[in-house]
């Protein structure tokens, strides 16, 4: 390569990252890829090296090709009635082994605490009688379902699948932003993103060990089977979807496909004698475990909304009688209520006698008079969220809101202080993201997924990194213009074997011979020739 070309090369690189450090400085956030001075962090070394060799034309060709693959594969989400490919950015989010170790333990700890909390809340409520949280907190939660009070679900697990959203603050410390223990979605994008990245940026994979994510469906299936009702030898698992119009329908089909189980809708199921059956061409077949991907409210018209056509009447009774395992259990919403969230560190200390490994984001409980007054006085500097919302719905970011919006919010808080919490505006950490013709810092969060089989909480090494594609925006939800990044968890060098079987042991295998000694047609053939 002559020097001229080489100059062009460097020029391209500086083009792509031109003004990056300046833009990153403006946000005041922690940048995942570059330390101050635009020095790539160690964990990003190989990614930076791979990107350095690409020109703008390469990068955009690859980004286009990845988007096309997503569209071809149907990796879409529903946006205002239209199927759109979920935007995947070409720069991955890399988490070094040591940081992941903390996250992994922290997430597992939180899941164990929430599991214990839910068992307690639907039983004796010792957490209330011991004065850790006020009774009102539980009983006023919109997702506290008395219909499932007083029984332990078959299999003994309530939080089979969870997604704990974490963010990094300006100092680079991970904090939990919210817990999702009802129907956490997004894991399909983790699986698909990795496939797309392996083909979109192959250069960056080489010399480092990136922990694989493809075992998730198998882990999930084995956890679901393990928590089947007692006495079932070979449990039948199904995924229950609200149907093709649901925005996460793609994920439902992918998970059912990768687990090799049926994807059912409510009308495919029938409850009789506290057992659940599905209608098949071979008659009715017993269903033992239901991976529920619909909201509790729509699950069982006998118990919840009687106008629901999505569920199946009798499911809750079947679960109560121990005839079927529903994952996640009905009524989990009380644990991811955002006001309960503010008590989770206390819950961890109470149930596990441990200190929380990952801290919460500071949260103002608006029912408390002082906090409310402070919040109302400083609305313009805070983020205010509804306690039972998801997908960024109803959230108001003070600095970005207009005067009218703030006034309206003020009225709503005064009318229903239980319905809201306030948090300081966090400058979520940033990762370079392709926007137009160069990379710019964009804010990201992270949702690690955990699978609980009753004995052990397994955290998928990776997770969904969502990114706000608009410059400066802090809202990462896909329904509001967010995209995603592949999340790479680096393995702790040789101790963490990605290669499970040493190669030699496979290649040098004893020869076994079972075929008949070459039969005589061969000899005759050679005679003929």
């Amino acid at each position, binding site marked *: 390569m002559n020097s001229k070309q080489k100059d062009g090369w460097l020029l391209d690189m500086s083009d792509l990252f031109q003004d990056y450090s300046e833009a990153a400085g403006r946000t005041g956030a922690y940048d995942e890829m570059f330390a101050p001075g635009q020095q790539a962090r160690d964990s990003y070394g190989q990614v930076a090296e791979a990107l350095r060799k690409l020109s703008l034309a390469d990068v955009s060709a690859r980004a286009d090709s990845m988007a096309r693959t997503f569209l071809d594969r149907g990796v879409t989400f529903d946006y205002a009635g239209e199927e759109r490919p979920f935007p995947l950015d070409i720069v991955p989010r890399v988490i070094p082994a040591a940081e992941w170790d903390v996250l992994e333990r922290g997430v597992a700890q939180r899941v164990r605490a929430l599991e214990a909390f839910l068992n307690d809340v639907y039983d004796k409520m010792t957490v209330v009688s011991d004065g850790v949280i006020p009774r009102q907190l539980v009983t006023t939660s919109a997702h506290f379902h008395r219909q499932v009070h007083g029984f332990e679900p078959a299999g003994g697990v309530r939080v089979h699948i969870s997604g704990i959203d974490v963010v990094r603050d300006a100092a680079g410390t991970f904090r939990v932003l919210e817990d999702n223990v009802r129907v956490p979605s997004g894991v399909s994008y983790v699986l698909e993103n990795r496939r797309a990245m392996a083909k979109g940026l192959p250069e960056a994979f080489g010399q480092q060990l990136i922990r694989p994510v493809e075992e998730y469906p198998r882990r999930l299936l084995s956890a679901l089977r393990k928590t089947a009702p007692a006495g079932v030898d*070979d449990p039948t698992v199904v995924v229950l979807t609200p149907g093709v119009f649901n925005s996460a329908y793609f994920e439902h089909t992918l998970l059912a496909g990768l687990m090799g189980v049926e994807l059912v809708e409510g009308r495919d199921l029938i409850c009789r004698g506290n057992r659940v059956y599905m209608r098949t061409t071979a008659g009715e077949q017993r269903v033992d475990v239901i991976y529920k991907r619909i909201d509790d409210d729509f699950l069982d018209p006998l118990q919840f909304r009687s106008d629901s056509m999505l569920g199946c009447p009798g499911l809750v009774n079947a679960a109560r009688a121990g005839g079927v395992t529903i994952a996640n259990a009905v009524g989990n919403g009380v644990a991811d209520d955002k006001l309960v969230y503010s008590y989770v560190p206390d819950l961890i200390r109470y149930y596990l006698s441990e200190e929380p490994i990952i801290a919460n984001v500071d949260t103002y409980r608006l029912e408390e008079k002082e906090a409310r007054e402070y919040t109302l006085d400083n609305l313009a500097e805070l983020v205010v969220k509804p306690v039972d919302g998801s997908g960024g719905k109803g959230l108001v970011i003070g600095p970005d809101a207009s005067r009218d919006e703030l006034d309206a919010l003020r009225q709503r808080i005064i009318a229903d202080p239980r319905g809201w919490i306030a948090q300081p505006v966090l400058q979520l950490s940033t990762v370079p993201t392709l926007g137009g013709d160069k990379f710019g810092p964009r804010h990201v969060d992270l949702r690690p997924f955990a699978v609980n089989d009753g004995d052990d909480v397994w955290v998928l090494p990776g997770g969904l990194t969502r990114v706000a594609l608009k410059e400066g925006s802090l809202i990462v939800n896909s329904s509001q213009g967010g995209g995603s990044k592949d999340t790479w968890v680096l393995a702790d060098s040789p101790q963490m074997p990605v290669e499970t079987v040493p190669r030699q042991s496979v290649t040098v295998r004893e020869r076994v011979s079972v*075929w008949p000694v070459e039969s005589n047609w*061969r000899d005759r053939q050679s005679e003929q020739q």
Partner: protein
Amino acid sequence: MLSRIAESLFWIGRYVERADGTARILDVHLERLNHLPMEERKSVAQELLAVMGAKPQSEDFGLPELLHALAYDKTSATSIAGSLGAARENARRARETVSSGLWESLNTTYYGLSQHRKDVVGTYRFCNWTLERTAMVSGLADTTVSHDESWLFLVLGRSLERADMTARMLSTRDVLSAGMSWVNMLRCAGAYESFLRTRRAAFGDQHAAEFLLLDRLFPRSIVYALRDADECLAKLDPSAQRVGFINDARRIVGQARTFLEFHRTDDLMSELPEHMERVQKAVSQASDAISRKYFNQADELAWVGEVS
């Protein structure tokens, strides 16, 4: 029909299926290769090439050379480009017998061969493109050619090559044991979802190998492909004998198929290398026998020079 035409059709079937199988293997293993450290890539690339039945040209055989050898080398019948070129050449010689749809799709494929970037990312797209084109070619062969003798030869070639390719897919297990190799084996054959649906929770090497080797319903399994070949052979030579077979090809294919189908084992994995070797050998012997029986009459009628 003319022997020459029959031979062309037989080889169209084989080459198209070979391109398809090679593209599948390359697509999946390239992804694995990219995750390996540099030092290992070379040896793995060489082993992969060996599984595909070729030898590296030089000592310095790495990823770019592997791509050339398996995808773009037009002079080698092992590569995708070479196979598709050969298939097109065969179709050109039998142009009056194959349907225009089949000929055109092969011809278009041939002209599309050079329109791809030959780096790793481009190769992924090339593999995908190959799969689309070969699916189109076999679809057109099935729907626009009468299912007479000529079609039987085409399907015979396709089935034999499919058995061979699946055997090679199973052999790649040893080459790339990094990570979940059985998932890759199944992905190669496009069998992952089918496998998961039939096996419920029974995952693992053994089950995956069993599926690709012995499943009676999955079209790319070896037993299925050999049965297809056997049926074609039976239709091509319907002379029913009371005892035995004079048709070598049927004997070879039938023996291999029945041995596998009725074989009972507790340790499939350690027998796998032998199965694979024998299947590949049976395919090549059957192919020879078919040539001798149907295509090779020119030898017998060799024109001898004037004797003065």
